[in-house]
């Protein structure tokens, strides 16, 4: 029976995802800095002004912005994109198209999705952001001298000991966040065990091993080699299975409503994925798991004795036969453990546990079950169109079958491993998608929608609309939960206006579109939004979803 006294929130989801980027044809390694800056310069976003700001959540200084040099000389190409603040995270631009964001993180182009409610929308928005990145790549390459080309890889490892992240973000209650990170170790272990076993559905696959892990020809997860601890706030060393970064991005709501206050669970565990089913399941099954965890339905018999050891062992066995010890003393393969989580989720669904909190939960459950059944049956031909790691493994085995001189150690096989995820249309995933082999779960129209429009059901909608309505020069600073403007509307001095966007589920199209449809000055719009916000108490319960 679901305890209705426990506060819960709809499982809004976002992502901040780094891409591999380098310039092929330039002498020397480490061309990532140049490549990332060239890519970012081709993406239109706001704010425009080049200034430095302090991000209170992470304590980082970052600079805006990264724009092309006005010179188009190929000889200037290297100097055109360098310079400026060289902090870890800089050049942040929010997109008036869809309310997402792009910036540079440690010489990687990083794409941030607008906040969405459904796993299908998350996958569609992800593919939309990749199309935006591909356009940027094509534009940047058109400016490069012959013989040089920026390559963008949608993966998590260069195969040479460097990993970069594909982070997901989920809205949870402060109470749930405290439970898993600070108060209840069995919650932490449960979540870690869920994630560790989920790689069979969500891994991209990788040739070889890194970071001192045991040698292996091929493994399921790109990230498994890099997890070295169970929990922690760090993301660039001793990576944790469960990240404890507390960056809520909800303004003052953080301090309201006690345990019902919003919090953001920052998940650094997963691989970058391209296959539609991998993308949908990655987010969808996490939404299910977090909804159960938030409702405090955590079954301690599903906990692995050592989730860190298990994720590596599971990853290194693409035959899926390896089992790991549970805390109960029983053994379970990754698929068996995932089935146990699925059964828990089915029971919770039967009580209506996901209603209003996870959109399309029944479809996620069916997709998850179908995938696990096929994995259990080793239906590789059936799974290859559906899961990235299975498709990649099939491609590599096929390549070696057709070229007997190639082995897992051959540079050609490692090359194919990388270009499976190349953003270039010649990338192997896209070739299989065009041929009709890759499963298509996402509606093409929905992907195109997110290339140019924000989601209607989160604050991303208002973010995009405000950035469109404002004169670009008025946009002073943008963050996920606020936008500041310096408006020049006739007075001598610019007036400073701030729009709080603290509720991730608020300021939706349904709430605000009448205000945006009125003619009037921009400041009138801001006044109306402020008045509407004042009429909405911060202590009201956030809406649930259908």
């Amino acid at each position: 029976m679901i305890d209705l006294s426990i506060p819960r929130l709809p499982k809004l989801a976002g992502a901040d995802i780094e891409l591999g980027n380098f310039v092929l044809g330039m002498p020397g390694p480490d061309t990532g800095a140049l490549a990332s800056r060239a890519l970012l310069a081709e993406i239109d976003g706001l704010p425009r002004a080049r200034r430095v700001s302090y991000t209170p959540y992470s304590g980082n200084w970052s600079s805006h912005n990264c724009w092309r040099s006005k010179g188009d000389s190929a000889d200037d190409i290297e100097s055109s994109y360098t310079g400026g603040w060289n902090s870890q995270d800089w050049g942040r631009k929010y997109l008036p198209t869809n309310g997402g964001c792009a910036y540079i993180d440690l010489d990687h182009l990083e794409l941030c999705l607008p906040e969405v409610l459904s796993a299908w929308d998350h996958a569609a928005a992800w593919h939309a952001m990749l199309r935006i990145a591909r356009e940027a790549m094509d534009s940047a390459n058109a400016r490069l001298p012959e013989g040089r080309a920026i390559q963008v890889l949608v993966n998590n490892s260069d195969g040479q000991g460097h990993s970069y992240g594909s982070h997901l973000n989920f809205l949870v209650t402060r109470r749930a966040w405290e439970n898993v990170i600070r108060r209840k170790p069995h919650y932490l272990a449960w979540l870690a065990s869920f994630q560790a076993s989920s790689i069979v559905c969500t891994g991209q696959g990788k040739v070889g091993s890194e970071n001192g892990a045991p040698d292996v020809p091929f493994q399921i997860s790109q990230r498994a080699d890099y997890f070295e601890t169970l929990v922690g706030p760090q993301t660039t060393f001793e990576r944790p299975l469960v990240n404890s970064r507390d960056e809520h991005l909800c303004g003052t709501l953080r301090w309201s409503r006690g345990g019902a206050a919003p919090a953001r669970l920052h998940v650094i565990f997963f691989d970058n994925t391209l296959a539609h089913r991998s993308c949908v399941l990655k987010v969808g099954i996490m939404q299910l798991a977090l909804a159960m965890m938030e409702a405090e339905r955590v079954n301690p018999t599903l906990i692995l004795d050592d989730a860190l050891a298990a994720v590596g062992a599971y990853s290194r066995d693409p035959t899926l036969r390896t089992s790991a010890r549970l805390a109960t003393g029983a053994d379970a393969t990754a698929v068996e453990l995932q089935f146990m989580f699925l059964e828990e989720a089915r029971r919770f669904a039967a009580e209506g546990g996901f209603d209003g909190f996870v959109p399309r939960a029944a479809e996620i459950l069916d997709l998850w079950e179908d995938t696990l059944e096929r994995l259990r049956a080793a239906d590789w031909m059936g799974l290859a169109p559906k899961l990235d790691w299975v498709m990649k493994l099939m491609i590599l085995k096929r390549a070696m079958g057709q070229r007997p001189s190639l082995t897992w150690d051959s540079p050609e096989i490692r090359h194919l491993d990388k270009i499976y995820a190349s953003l270039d249309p010649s990338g192997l995933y896209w070739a299989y998608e065009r041929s009709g082999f890759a499963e298509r779960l996402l509606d093409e129209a929905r992907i195109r929608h997110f290339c140019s429009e924000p989601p209607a059901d989160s604050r991303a909608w208002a973010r995009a609309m405000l950035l469109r309505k404002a004169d670009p020069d008025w946009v002073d600073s943008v963050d996920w939960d606020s936008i500041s403007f310096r408006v020049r509307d006739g007075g001598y001095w610019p007036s400073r206006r701030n729009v709080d966007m603290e509720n991730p589920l608020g300021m939706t199209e349904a709430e605000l579109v009448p205000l945006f449809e009125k003619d009037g000055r921009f400041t009138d719009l801001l006044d109306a939004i402020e008045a509407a916000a004042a009429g909405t108490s911060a202590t009201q319960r956030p809406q649930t979803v259908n």
Partner: protein
Amino acid sequence: MRERERQDYRPPAGEGGGGASGGGGLDRLREQANRFLEAGDEAINRALANSDSEAFLRASRQQGGE
């Protein structure tokens, strides 16, 4: 960690390609799947013919991120 013995199984008669609606016999599905795979073979051939794999791997070295 231990390995499970694989139980004898029969893969389900399923789709050949992910996007294909199937229907028809297993031979037709196999033929369809082979057509899809041959299209992918062209991509593999192009990738390996047009570039120096070792040079690609050297150039692809990244900074660690996150």
